[in-house]
């Protein structure tokens, strides 16, 4: 009876199209808004993704998210290094500078300062140049997607950062932060010169734990040092996500749009499916009279729901992907992220939409008196 169910569904082109387009729109809303939300979350935690070597990130205990910290002192670095179980501890600087452009404009630049000796915390991928050149006085690596923002500098070019000379020695690929400024890497010492702060200049202390020491034990021990707290990458990620959701309203706003998509999906599926069922009521009555059992009719309706759900989802996700592609511009890419759980979630939402939407129709079909075939 699968073919019969599909023929009944596809036979009414207008309703079939309305159903699929309605669900595609709902699916577009859910996946597009969901992917932008996840993209923003991914971007917000970008600095965390750039650094894979550290087991622990040490900073002020009051930190709320990755990009907003209270600096700690060089003494703290030494204290951390002396904690049992710590294999290594390296400084990381993160600060903002203003970069003067050749056309007289300026851009805000995120300067990441890494240990000059070990280069721990460096960019995940070097595209041009040698990372070791960061040890040169005033040397900087420019993140690839920031290149256009900074007037397309080349290796050897000189930039002006906070009125100080900076020399481009290479290009790298790294994730920007939540507000996606231009990103540059420099040695810790250079970075502190570019962005002079107060007495305390360390943004984070990156810590590697000895293989035979437990991460959580070391984390606890570091936490016992006054004015310091150690976070695993996961903890800092969720701290950041939680902060952005809570403080920026992004979670609620995107959540509302996703919910709207969900509601639109249920309403569209429900209304059109119901109308579709009403139009086919006689056919269902005939099937019942001819001997269709409840399970057969339920199976037919669920199959119809699944088909339109799949079609709508496919179209919606396709459109969302097109939006993402259309939004790709060097240096200003739309923050979108389509992980498989999002697609699975959208699929689940779509199934709920079509099944909830078809419940009313199903009830109507199951309650239908087959005797109406004689009327």
């Amino acid at each position, binding site marked *: *009876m699968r*073919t*019969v169910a599909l*023929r*009944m569904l*596809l*036979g*009414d082109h207008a309703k079939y199209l309305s159903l699929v387009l309605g669900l595609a729109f709902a699916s577009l809303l859910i996946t597009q808004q969901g992917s932008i939300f996840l993209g923003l979350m991914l971007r917000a935690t970008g600095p965390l993704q750039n650094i894979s070597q550290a087991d622990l990130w040490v900073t002020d205990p009051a930190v709320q998210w990755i990009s907003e910290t209270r600096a700690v002192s060089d003494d703290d670095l030494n204290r951390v290094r002396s904690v049992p179980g710590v294999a290594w501890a390296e400084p990381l600087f993160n600060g903002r500078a203003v970069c003067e452009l050749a056309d007289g404009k300026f851009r805000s630049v995120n300067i990441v300062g890494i240990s000059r000796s070990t280069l721990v915390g460096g960019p995940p991928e070097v595209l041009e140049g040698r990372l070791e050149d960061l040890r040169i006085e005033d040397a900087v690596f420019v993140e690839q997607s920031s290149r256009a923002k900074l007037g397309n500098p080349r290796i050897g070019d000189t930039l002006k950062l906070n009125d100080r000379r900076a020399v481009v020695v290479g290009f790298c690929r790294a994730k920007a932060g939540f507000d996606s400024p231009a990103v540059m890497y420099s040695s810790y010492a250079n970075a502190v010169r570019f962005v002079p702060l107060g007495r305390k200049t360390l943004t984070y202390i990156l810590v590697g734990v000895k293989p035979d020491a437990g991460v959580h034990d070391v984390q606890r021990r570091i936490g016992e040092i006054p004015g310091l707290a150690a976070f695993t990458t996961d903890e800092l990620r969720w701290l950041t996500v939680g902060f952005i959701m809570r403080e920026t309203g992004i979670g609620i706003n995107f959540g509302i749009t996703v919910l709207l998509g969900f509601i639109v999906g249920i309403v569209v599926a429900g209304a059109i499916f119901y109308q579709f069922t009403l139009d086919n009521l*006689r*056919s269902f009555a*005939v*099937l*019942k*009279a*001819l*001997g*269709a*059992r*409840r*399970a*057969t009719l339920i199976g037919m309706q669920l199959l119809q729901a699944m088909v339109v759900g799949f079609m709508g989802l496919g179209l919606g996700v396709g459109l969302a992907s097109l939006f993402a592609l259309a939004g790709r511009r060097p240096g200003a890419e739309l923050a979108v992220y389509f992980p498989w759980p999002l697609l699975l979630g959208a699929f689940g939402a779509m199934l709920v939409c079509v099944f909830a939407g078809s419940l009313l129709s199903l009830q109507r079909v199951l309650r239908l*008196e*087959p*005797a109406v*075939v*004689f*009327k």
Partner: protein
Amino acid sequence: MIPPGDTPDHAPAVRLRGVTKTFGRGSASVPALRGVDMRVEPGQLVMLVGPSGCGKTTLVSIISGVLDQDEGEVEVYGTAWSDLSTDQRARRRASTVGFVFQQFNLLPALSAAENVAVPLLLQGLPRRAAMERAGEALRAVGLGDRRRDLPSRLSGGMQQRVAIARALVGEPSLLVCDEPTANLDARTGQSVMELVHEASHSHDSLGRRRAVIVVTHDGRIFHFADRIEEMEDGRIKDRPSEVVMLEAHAHAAPGAPGAGAGPATLAGGASGPTPARPDTGGT
């Protein structure tokens, strides 16, 4: 309940005892059937006639198991519908009852062959086998070359032939036709009735002779009946009225199907369809 002597193998095709049905409640209630007794034997073609609203359609709905009676017993080939659950009833309808409707009731999105195959698919036959048998059934009603056509591309007569093929493809024991000629011209109606009449002389999948019940207003087809039952106000009359008998005789042209085979062989020596009273099983 099967009376002594009516084993399932020898049970009447249809037995009704004291069947009542009322639609609505309270002051708005309308009694449609007021205690109907009837018996149809295997191989019989019985016509139910009577004015609109007399309860014919309600009666055949109850006989075919698509509507529940309020009181009384309804048995089809020895099985009471009331003894079956909803799903058992659906399964039995699929295997036992064939339907031909006034409005044809073909599924508009399905081709002629697919429409005919539906009862077989409902019985669980694989699609390929069902389609093959549907093709044969369509050839049997003269529509072998229209199997791929949608109902909208077929004339009324053709659609009714497809409906007859659909009704017979599962080799049901009982064929129920509701005004099968109402939407057809005289000639097409006659050819459709020839197919229905032929069905009453064939057998079901178990080798039992098939019974046919036809609800009609159309006096031009009365002569196909082995027996005519006239209904009035929710009851079956003791004898059909003179008007009905006259109509039956008037259209029973010599040599026409039913004119010889049917009426002439009926009890009482009448030269037309006989108003044989049902044996109600001793009630």
